[in-house]
């Protein structure tokens, strides 16, 4: 497996042969070194190919879960945004009733979490957590504030591009996905080993939301569109 030390480049050249797969042992992301499996992986048990996954209902949601700007007494600081998109399987079918969970830093780049020691202010009006179920068109929608970039200890002068963490449960158990959504034009893209662990540039672009004037609400909030494609659903027999 790839070894990492101070001489390991943080970002490797593009390699489209990876397709949509992230390089699990990407050396520039130091924390992979002792955590990525380095022994052979077994093939997927046959019965898991079409096993249905957990299904969540409205009882999984609290009121205001999809509006991260209204979960406290006051308005959070930052640039108010709407993030919306549709969840599909690879066959192009919308997945309705999919549980979508998000978490993010506040506008200053600070997480509401004990482990985060970045000396940027916490915002008493922002927890940074949201949930929703996709509608009949597979659509999710969150109102939030744009998260800030923040430093991390991976290497000298390391900064994460602004991102929102997404967790999605598909229809099938194998369609589970946890990923991160990024914002268009971020100058930090070229320096981030997590983003670039997706070696294929066209796959990497799928992690970046699109600014959308139609979604933007006048005098209120900028709008971003980001669709999510989970694994294929085997053809029903």
């Amino acid at each position: 497996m790839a070894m990492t030390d101070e001489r390991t480049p943080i970002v490797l050249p593009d390699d489209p042969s990876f397709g949509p797969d992230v390089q699990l042992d990407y050396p520039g992301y130091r924390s992979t070194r002792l955590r990525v499996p380095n022994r052979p992986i077994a093939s997927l048990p046959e019965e898991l190919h079409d096993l249905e996954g957990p299904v969540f209902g409205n009882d999984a949601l609290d009121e205001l879960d999809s509006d991260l700007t209204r979960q406290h007494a006051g308005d959070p600081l930052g640039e108010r945004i709407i993030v919306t998109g549709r969840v599909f399987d690879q066959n192009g079918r919308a997945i309705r009733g999919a549980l979508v969970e998000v978490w993010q830093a506040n506008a200053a780049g600070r997480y509401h979490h004990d482990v985060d020691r970045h000396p940027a202010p916490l915002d008493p009006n922002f927890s940074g957590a949201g949930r929703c179920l996709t509608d009949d068109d597979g659509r999710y929608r969150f109102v939030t504030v744009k998260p800030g970039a923040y430093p991390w200890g991976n290497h000298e002068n390391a900064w994460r591009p602004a991102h929102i963490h997404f967790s999605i449960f598909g229809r099938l158990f194998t369609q589970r996905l946890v990923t991160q959504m990024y914002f268009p034009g971020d100058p930090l893209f070229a320096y981030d080993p997590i983003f670039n662990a997706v070696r294929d540039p066209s796959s990497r672009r799928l992690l970046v939301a699109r600014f959308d004037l139609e979604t933007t609400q006048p005098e209120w909030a900028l709008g971003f569109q980001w669709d999510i494609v989970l694994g294929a659903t085997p053809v029903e027999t």
Partner: protein
Amino acid sequence: MTLPRTPSQTVGPYYEIGLCRRSENELVPPGEPSAVRLTGQLLDGDEVPVSDGVIEVWDAENRRWGRCGTDADGRFSFLVGGVQHLEVYVFARGLLRHQLTRIYFPGAASEAPAALVAEQEDGGLRFDIRLQGERQTVFFAV
């Protein structure tokens, strides 16, 4: 039509904000006769506990699901019962994509690989998950 899949990214160190807002580790109620405590540790290649991992279990037979973040000792804990095996997803900082394994209950299935059978311990069950090395847990391609 085949759409390109959205790539995976790590759950990172702050997943508790979004994924652990509720206690979700009891698949059966504590009073249920079959209820048994399943605990384990998530360990890295140096056998060091992974304190920022999250384990999800799916009992497909009874359609019961649970999730538990690991604590400072890398420990996770579920209350389970009435099932032969659980499908298990492992997420952690440093894992760019989740891993899949399976935990069998002792004596539940004759075809179960020994490495995937939980051990009896203190009236409950124990199953440690090792992310890499000689004793790496059996993971399935997903």
